[in-house]
């Protein structure tokens, strides 16, 4: 279908995208690492319950931890081998996670589900659940929950807007696996019972747009701006619908899925392959050769860095994920997750590490906010300790934590930190149930 232009969206920022570092690197497969450490916390919600014991042999794609609760997902062995131990360790974001360590044997024995040909909606939903598929855009929301919305939906929006700087994993996937992605999108559409499939792609990827124009889904050219790939932003620019605060996309009849998720669904349906592998962009000026790699979940970051030639310069920041929302790492000893989209080694020239100066009230944070919030108010009241005022005058509850405010801030205020603090306070308050 011929590509359409997206609606105008206010705010947003134009960071230096530096995608050229890795955009031309065709995907490669990382050699099988000796040790894999697979976290049971692979999605939002509760961590999965391990169903294997130390010493047990597992095959590639075998379930090793089972979903615990409705918003949780199964975890699978990324390679065949022996479970050496199950222990708690500090994860990349600083919280405790349970890791299942597997010593790989390189047999490549697989334990997949049977492939489905022309599956029904129910079969697809079942398969998505069984294969432990989660949203690969970053949040890690279980896809099985998303394809069973409580309200009727009429549109499936595929998120091909890789608006984060540096990251090119979705771009490479869209180029190299166009047909699989489209088929995956159709499976999801079938599971949802919708006909209308839209894919949003940023204007700086004309080759991707051209590739998708050959299919019968509707490409929409998004303006190059961060955060156009935000769920609420994407729904608005492609369909003109506004998702209310605290509402889900399904409340306006739309479901958003990342392109990588579509590809995972396609493999799950056609090959019966559970989700234990994904493309990760390894980039930044401090890495010798930036690459896009197929990496198994649970690979140690050290192995990935070594495969990419190691450090070029001393990195100032090591980021897991995109530079706008990712987690800064303190060492290479961490392990990848299903949601890890990038490993970035940033030099002092690229990474921001300035000392904050006093707020000027310039309002630039509010100008760029894609949710029309008042980040400066949140920061002001939060630093004074008045969390209720911070939430009220900053409208913090609606924040999507895209980081645009802190990016633009000339005083380099730690706005996201203040927002997260306020949100944590609100969560605690809701838990306590007081007013």
């Amino acid at each position: 279908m011929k590509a359409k232009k997206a609606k105008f969206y206010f705010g947003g920022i134009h960071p230096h995208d530096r995608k050229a570092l890795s955009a031309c690197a065709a995907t490669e497969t990382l050699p099988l690492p000796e040790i894999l450490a697979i976290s049971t916390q692979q999605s939002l919600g509760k961590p999965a319950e391990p169903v294997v014991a130390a010493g047990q042999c597992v095959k590639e794609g075998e379930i090793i931890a089972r979903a615990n609760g409705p918003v949780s997902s199964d975890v699978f062995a990324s390679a065949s081998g022996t479970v050496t131990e199950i222990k708690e360790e500090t994860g990349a974001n600083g919280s405790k996670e349970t890791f299942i360590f597997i010593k790989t044997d390189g047999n490549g024995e697989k334990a997949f589900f049977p492939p489905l040909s022309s599956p029904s909606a129910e079969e697809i939903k079942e398969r998505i659940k069984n294969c432990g598929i989660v949203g690969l855009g970053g949040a890690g929301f279980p896809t099985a929950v998303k394809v069973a919305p409580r309200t009727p939906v009429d549109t499936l929006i595929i998120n091909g807007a890789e608006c984060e700087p540096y990251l090119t994993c979705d771009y490479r996937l869209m180029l190299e696996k166009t047909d699989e992605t489209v088929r995956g999108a159709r499976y999801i559409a079938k599971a949802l019972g919708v006909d209308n499939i839209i894919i949003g792609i940023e204007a700086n990827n004309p080759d991707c747009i051209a590739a998708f124009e050959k299919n019968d889904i509707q490409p929409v050219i998004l303006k190059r701006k961060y955060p156009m790939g935000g769920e609420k932003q994407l729904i608005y620019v492609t369909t003109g619908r506004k998702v209310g605060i605290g509402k889900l996309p399904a409340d306006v009849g739309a479901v958003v899925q990342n392109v990588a998720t579509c590809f995972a669904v396609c493999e799950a349906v056609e090959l019966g392959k559970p989700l234990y592998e994904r493309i990760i962009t390894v980039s930044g000026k401090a890495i010798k050769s930036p690459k896009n790699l197929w990496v198994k979940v649970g690979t140690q970051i050290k192995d990935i860095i070594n495969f990419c030639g190691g450090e070029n310069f001393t990195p100032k920041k090591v980021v897991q994920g995109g530079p706008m929302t990712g987690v800064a790492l303190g060492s290479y000893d961490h392990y990848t997750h299903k949601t890890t989209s990038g490993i970035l080694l940033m030099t002092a020239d690229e990474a921001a590490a300035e000392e904050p100066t006093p707020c000027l009230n310039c309002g630039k944070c509010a100008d760029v906010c894609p949710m029309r919030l008042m980040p400066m108010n949140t920061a002001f009241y939060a630093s004074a300790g008045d969390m209720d005022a911070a939430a009220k005058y900053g409208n913090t509850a609606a924040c999507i934590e895209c980081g645009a405010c802190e990016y633009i801030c000339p005083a380099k205020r730690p706005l996201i930190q203040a927002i997260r603090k306020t949100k944590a306070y609100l969560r605690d308050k809701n838990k306590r149930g007081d007013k």
Partner: protein
Amino acid sequence: MDNTVVISTPPHVKSKRTTRRIMIDVVIALIPCAVMGIVYFGWRAAVTEIVSVLSCVASEFVYFFIANKGFSNKCANAAAVCKRWLKQFDFSSVVTGVILAMVLPSEVPWYAVLLGGIFAIALVKMLFGGTGKNLVAPSTAARVFMFLSFSAVMTSYSEPILGAIFPAEDLIQSSATSLSGLLNIKSEIYSQPTALMNVLDLFLGTGVAGCIGETSKAAIILGYIYLVARNVIKWWQPVLYLVVFGFFAVFMSGFGYLAGGSGYKFDMALFLPHIFSGGVAFASVFMFTDYVTSPKGAAAQAVFLVTAAVLTAVLRYFTGMEVVSFIVLLMNLLVPLFDKYLMRKPFGYKKQKKQKEAKQ
């Protein structure tokens, strides 16, 4: 990897723009005004500008030196304190100094300028917490302070070196005299009634008696273009203020016609003379757009500017004085109200509200 990596919350990339860079941009935008001030008013203008900037920067330094903890220790290692001060120096006091000089007549003695600079920085800015914490614009507050303390010299505007291209005598005398009455601007404020002047003269500032930086509208527009191009201010802010002010001033002048016995008249010929006279053009670009003392969010800013414009026009009509700096001070104090009651609604807010009503 050694242990020099930084761990922080995202985002890990940030824009290159800093507070210091913004302040330097404002100083650059003020250069045309400062230069034209020297061209029109001679060496006295240059003295005022230099004294004003030095006084502001020096007061900031002295305040920084004294007010921080461990004063006696600091005297011992003054070099280290100077280094620290330089590190945090963000040019905001330079901006204050230049703006203060721009809004003073060139005849003001140097000691008055010095006092004004100290008042602006020490009392208005630093006492309230420094950059970003001041309640009112330091330069405007200092101007009002000087206006009240040295009213004689603050209201005697000297003639510029460059005379008018179209002297007032050439204009048709009858209509001109009636206009001066209508504008109701006293001659001691403007030694030449502004309505008597040609619009081109008002625009260039040739032959216009006034403050150092306020007379040349051409220079102000250059500064405006630079600030907009550098994305320091929003293009519509000065435009909105001046257009609303212009129309309202024309509307108020109509009452002047009425009082003069010729009946109410909405005379658009007065539009440009109004916005080109006095300090409104300068204030619209450099004072009402001040970050610290203006509301946040486009809607609040728009209402703020419209209110300021209407108040300026009304007060100018009734007092017959240049009241812009008083209006700036007044509006600065009202900023928290605008911030509180005109806070914008987040994306998707309306929808939620509607659904709530439907449920009820």
